[in-house]
């Protein structure tokens, strides 16, 4: 029961995150959407580890990996945003539309 609630929460977080990723114009807000999706993944993995998989150690490892992914993506993302902002004073996805077709 608890697991289901946790997983439903995770599903909701993933849905909201996806909404954010799709709808936000600002790079930073967009990344928040991605973070939220990963937050959902984190919630799910905690739930699975604790309530379903008998606390197997790989579960914790996966949680750490989820965090690592978040951190790594954020770091590189911010670096890119900085670089682009410096060249173009642009912080929105619409402003990088040169490459197309």
């Amino acid at each position: 029961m608890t697991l289901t609630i946790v997983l439903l929460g995770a599903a909701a977080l993933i849905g909201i995150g996806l909404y954010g990723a799709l709808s936000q114009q600002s790079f930073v807000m967009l990344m928040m959407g991605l973070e939220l999706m990963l937050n959902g993944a984190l919630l799910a993995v905690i739930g699975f580890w604790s309530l379903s998989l008998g606390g197997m150690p790989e579960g914790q490892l996966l949680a750490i990996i989820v965090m690592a992914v978040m951190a790594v993506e954020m770091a590189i993302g911010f670096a890119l945003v900085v670089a682009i902002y410096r060249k173009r004073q642009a912080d929105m996805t619409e402003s990088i539309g040169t490459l197309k077709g």
Partner: protein
Amino acid sequence: MTDLWVALLALFAVWTGWRVFRVDSMVRASFSLMLSFIAVGAIGVLLSAPYIGVATVFMMAVEMMVMAIFMVMFMMNPAGLNPMVMVHQHRLSIGAGVVAALSLGAAVLFSRPPDDAVRAEADVVAELGHELLGPSMLIFETAGVTLLATMVGAVILSSRQGRFGAADEGSRPPGLSDGGAPAGRQPEGGGGHHHHHHHGGHG
């Protein structure tokens, strides 16, 4: 009791997650996101994963602080604190989010995960340590290398000054002739549509 707390915290996490895109400034948004993470971290603590939970809380607190500062300091001054609505393809996004959440929820309801709760006496932190330095060492090490590479990459991309002066000077493709302009598509007029046009306090 724990279950109730877990449920409430999950609800809180979702609610704060929702707030991220509802509040009218990026700083508030990042604080909402932080709250959502903290809620998940708390669930972790409640569900016998203290290390993960605490790590989440700390890590995300720091990250969100960085993000907030980042926005205030570096980005769109003064937009970081200003109210804003900056969305596109809004209905489609709502639809996608709802469909994703509903179908995942349905999948959750129709799935039969194993039913094996963590033993109360387990020393989960020690087990994690053993796992990291034992069977999953390769994964852990790869993660370490990834973090290293990320740091190097982030520095490369974002640093202003390098050993030899401006870090990005001359970092462009060679021209068709020596010293000429790079071939191919040219950038569109220096960030012509600046974001200031897109949001100006209508939010």
